[in-house]
């Protein structure tokens, strides 16, 4: 809502009220003011000129004019506007004038003819195209005001001396979407009661209600009032009214349309004017829900198929308007219109909102209806509109009005206490202060001890409960005046849930390993959502996805990391070590599930490349080593890696990760089928791991129980064996661990060889076994016995040759 400071003077004494200070006050206490605009700012030397002569310049579209601008001599000005003519009062920019956009007017010559200024259209003064009256849209502006004299500044006449406050209204404060509503709000803040006057309309025509019927269903149109006027002469509205419209962002059209818009701005009550001729045949108006198959062409010429939930205005047979949204083209007021029927009504907010949305046709009127309007303003709006039409269009107001529905709204009455008000606001206001504040809002209050009762006027339909009253008291008292305190909640212990601490610890560990944290989108394609998982579950898909790449909630984090890899590759960033911690989502047994995951992706070199050529390229074992470090740091033991085929992963370079036979994640290379075919990845080897933290977190060590460092030396023995190439390290290690006795503390692979020096189908493995007895020095005999056992077991179980 654009609120005119000058218009506010109709209701309030604005002397000494600085518009910018008022804007700040409103923002802090009522409605945020998005901007305060003073249209004449930066403009100068714009005056009224009277065109004395105007002659066409041969061979051009230009005219040579002489213009009286209140100086001793008339000025010669060349003008290209199609509508320029002698006798007009126009806007003249004198040489030296400043126009918007830094334009400065100079004396000059056009086609060799001297021109001492410029005759302007409204757009040249900074008016938006959307508010310039259609008649002057493609030419210069012409005044029709006999009071204007050549040489007068145009700013006051055009309302450019005004200050326009842009009320950024939240849905609950739609009561300020009118000048009267704004005046009440401003009045509360500057402690003045606004002069909101009732109107007295003396009808001057014959009664029309005898042979006209109107029917409206109270449920969809609780108030429906009509008046009829005859003898309307369509013309331009007086300038003062046009000024008020355009400063509010509304384009003046003609005296009838302007009157309805003006009344809407003034009262917040949307109005509609029908050409009465349309109803000559049926003599009837009916407000009802639309019927299946019914059609209507709106004023903006849009053809719509009506929905059974649309409220329509009909002449008893055909639709003539979409109630609360827009009138029909068939009942439009035109140049030929002489008689009009004026409508002021209250329509159901939800139905109006849905109709506007359904037909993609939101209007100022529908916006007002959907947020609610003042039920007490229907009569007044109708009567003011009639008065204006009589004044501006010479209309006769026929006697009588028709109220097809007229449901009264009872005022909301709220009783609460001063102590509760203070408790919620954290204030220390006396009853007197509270009553005074509510008085500024013009709310009647009755006091009974600590208790007070507020009767809320219908113009404030946002107020229902005591909390709403507390907000009114608080904001008018001023949030700036409220103390800053801290909640007295007694002793509470803050912190994270145990799992949250573990997740944050893991994130820190990965960051410490040199990985950059990423956050990726949860929504991906169904295909990617279900790739890179051991077992895809039922996908969670959104209705009406924004695009085909974001349809399904991810079941893995790898897909997002790959998006990030591709994005970075495209920007020539090919050394990547990334991770993400976040949720994955699936559906099982009709329930939605969310699981906390952690995943990492590695591409390129393990460290920064260097001049010593000691580069290490990331491979499976590098990434596995990093992951093993993580497990070490969180105290997760006995992790098993089982070669496994997983969709999207390299079939022979991928392992499922298990602890106690429970699957907790995967590690491996992204399938070359994917990296070779997708040009984003340029065939690079991408290694990843992904862990299900829901499974991993319970396995994490819980605190440390310290023990002293060993006092006795450890003993190491190396063991070299020859086995079939199919034998895995895991098989050998578990055989060693099972047979080496209780003093074995570690088994380390120190060499793996397969090749020319060995028989085909064989490989050689070397291990370093470390033994330690924490109680005493180990003897050679004990260790030898242990290694003998190991050797025998390897020979027997894995057909190993000891070398």
């Amino acid at each position: 809502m654009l609120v005119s400071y000058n218009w506010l003077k109709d209701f309030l004494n604005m002397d000494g009220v600085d518009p910018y200070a008022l804007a700040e006050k409103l923002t802090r206490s009522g409605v945020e003011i998005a901007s305060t605009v003073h249209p004449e700012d930066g403009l100068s030397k714009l005056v009224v000129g009277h065109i004395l002569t105007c002659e066409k310049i041969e061979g051009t579209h230009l005219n040579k004019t002489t213009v009286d601008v209140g100086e001793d001599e008339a000025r010669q000005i060349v003008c290209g506007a199609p509508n320029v003519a002698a006798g007009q009062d126009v806007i003249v920019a004198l040489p030296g004038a400043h126009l918007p956009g830094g334009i400065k007017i100079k004396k000059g010559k056009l086609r060799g003819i001297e021109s001492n200024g410029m005759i302007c259209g409204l757009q040249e003064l900074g008016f938006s195209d959307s508010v310039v009256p259609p008649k002057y849209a493609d030419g210069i502006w012409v005044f029709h005001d006999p009071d204007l004299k050549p040489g007068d500044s145009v700013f006051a006449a055009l309302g450019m001396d005004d200050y326009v406050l842009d009320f950024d209204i939240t849905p609950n404060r739609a009561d300020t979407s009118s000048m009267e509503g704004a005046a009440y709000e401003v009045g509360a803040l500057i402690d003045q009661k606004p002069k909101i006057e009732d109107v007295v309309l003396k009808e001057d025509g014959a009664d029309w209600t005898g042979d006209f019927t109107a029917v409206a269903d109270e449920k969809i149109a609780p108030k429906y009032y009509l008046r009829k006027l005859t003898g309307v002469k369509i013309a331009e509205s007086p300038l003062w009214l046009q000024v008020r419209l355009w400063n509010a962002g509304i384009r003046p059209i003609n005296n009838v349309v302007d009157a309805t818009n003006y009344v809407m701005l003034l009262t917040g009550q949307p109005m509609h004017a029908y050409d009465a001729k349309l109803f000559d045949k049926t003599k009837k108006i009916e407000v009802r829900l639309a019927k299946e198959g019914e059609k209507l062409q709106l004023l903006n010429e849009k053809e719509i198929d009506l929905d059974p939930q649309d409220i329509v205005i009909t002449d008893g047979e055909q639709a003539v308007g979409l109630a609360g949204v827009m009138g029909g083209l068939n009942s439009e007021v035109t140049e030929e219109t002489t008689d009009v029927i004026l409508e002021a009504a209250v329509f159901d907010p939800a139905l109006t909102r849905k109709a506007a949305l359904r037909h993609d046709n939101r209007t100022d009127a529908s916006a007002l209806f959907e947020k609610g309007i003042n039920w007490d303003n229907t009569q007044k709006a109708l009567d003011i509109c009639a008065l204006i039409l009589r004044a501006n269009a010479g209309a006769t107001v026929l006697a009588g009005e028709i109220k097809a529905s007229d449901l009264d709204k009872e005022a909301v009455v709220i009783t609460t206490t001063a102590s509760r008000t203070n408790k919620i606001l954290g204030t220390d206001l006396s009853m007197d202060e509270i009553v005074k504040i509510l008085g500024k809002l013009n709310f009647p209050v009755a006091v009974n001890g600590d208790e007070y009762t507020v009767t809320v006027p219908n113009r404030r339909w946002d107020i229902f409960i005591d909390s709403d009253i507390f907000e009114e008291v608080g904001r008018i008292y001023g949030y700036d005046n409220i103390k800053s305190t801290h909640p007295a909640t007694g002793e509470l212990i803050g912190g994270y849930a145990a799992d949250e601490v573990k997740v944050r610890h893991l994130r820190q560990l990965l960051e410490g390993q040199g990985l950059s944290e990423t956050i990726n989108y949860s929504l991906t394609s169904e295909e990617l959502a279900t790739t890179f998982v051991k077992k895809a579950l039922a996908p969670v898909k959104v209705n009406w996805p924004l695009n085909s790449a974001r349809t399904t909630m991810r079941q893995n984090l790898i897909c997002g990391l790959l998006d990030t890899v591709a994005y970075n590759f495209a920007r020539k960033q090919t050394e990547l070590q990334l991770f993400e911690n976040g949720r994955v989502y699936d559906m099982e047994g009709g329930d939605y599930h969310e699981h906390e995951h952690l995943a990492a992706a590695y591409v390129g070199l393990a460290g920064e490349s260097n001049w010593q050529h000691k580069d290490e390229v990331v491979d499976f074992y590098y990434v596995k080593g990093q992951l093993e470090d993580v497990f070490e740091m969180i105290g997760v033991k006995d992790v098993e890696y089982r070669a496994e085929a997983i969709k999207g992963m390299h079939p022979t370079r991928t392992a499922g990760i298990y602890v106690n036979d429970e699957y907790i994640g995967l590690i491996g290379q992204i399938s070359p089928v994917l990296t070779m075919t997708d040009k984003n990845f340029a065939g690079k080897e991408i290694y990843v791991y992904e862990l299900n933290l829901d499974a991993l977190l319970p396995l994490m060590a819980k605190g440390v129980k310290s023990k002293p460092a060993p006092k006795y030396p450890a003993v190491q023995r190396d063991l070299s064996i020859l086995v079939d190439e199919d034998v895995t390290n895991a098989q050998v290690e578990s055989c060693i661990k099972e047979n080496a006795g209780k003093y074995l503390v570690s088994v380390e692979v120190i060499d793996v060889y397969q090749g020319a020096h060995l028989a085909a189908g064989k490989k050689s493995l070397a291990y370093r076994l470390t033994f330690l007895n924490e109680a005493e020095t180990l003897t050679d005999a004990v260790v030898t016995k242990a290694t003998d056992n190991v050797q025998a077991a390897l020979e027997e179980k894995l057909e190993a040759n000891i070398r």
Partner: protein
Amino acid sequence: MDLFDRLKDLREQGLAEIKEAESEKSLNDVRVKLVGKKGELTQILHQMKDVAPEKRREVGQKVNELRDLFNEKLASAKDNLIEKAIEARLEAEKIDVTLPGRRKHVGSKHPIRIIQDDLERFFIGMSYQVVQGPEIESEHYNFEMLNLPKDHPARDMQATFYVDADHLLRSQTSPVQARTMEKHDFDKGDLKMISPGKVYRRDDDDATHSHQFMQMEGLVVGKNISLSDLKGTLELVAKHEFGQDRETRLRPSYFPFTEPSVEMDVSCFECGGKGCAICKNTGWIEVLGAGIVHPNVLSAAGIDPSVYSGFAFGLGLDRFAILKYGIDDIRDFYSDDVRFLQQFRQEED
């Protein structure tokens, strides 16, 4: 030449030779020659019989003095040579210390996480619990429990991702409020919680919109919680996050689940309040929304609004990061260019 002259010559010659020896080996040769068992000094002693008896004592004394002198000089010459050898070796080991070192990758924390972690610690310090809730949420918790009944204009189907008739991707972290209040046992004390997490809106992604972003919800419920407590708390948040010298203001606003509702602005960090493009010439930047928990929300969670009251606030972690680090495209958070991410390594957190 008598022995005294010989000793005198030997002294000069010996000292010169010690001085000239350039290696441990040649020094050793000099030592053998001068003070060895068959060395010059020994030879002089052997000639003692030719000396007059009254002079023998003096000769003996001179010889011993000279032996001591030689030994001393030999020892220090040897030390010198060893030192020189070490010096030579170290010189040969010289490297160019200005060449760059071998570097590992250095990790980085996501900028939104920096804000999140920092705020979490800040609130934990004021004894808030950090609570999580589901992202696939029911209409019941996302709307109804928050005083947004069916047909409420703010429940725009177009703006929310539904996954079935009554489940959706939460459009705010506020449903965690409702879930937490419902479960909380007020006999065990008041409730103070924050809940960070992802939220979703059906917006096309552009520089200022993202279909996914992160919020942090805060809630305090007790028997004596007031708007002034909210004001004091929010001021601390603003100063903690945006600097002690920032001014703040509360403005009336509207959220269905709070009444009164407010928004907080901080004075523009760019222009300090004079007005610039960043603050749209207002001098103020909106940072969060908050309010006193609506009685309907308390009632829905089974809490008696005539006994308990509370305040709630919601802030955008993305928005905080955008404001704090001067980021101009929200998509940067989710496309994750490593050069964008790694600049935040320098942020202390």
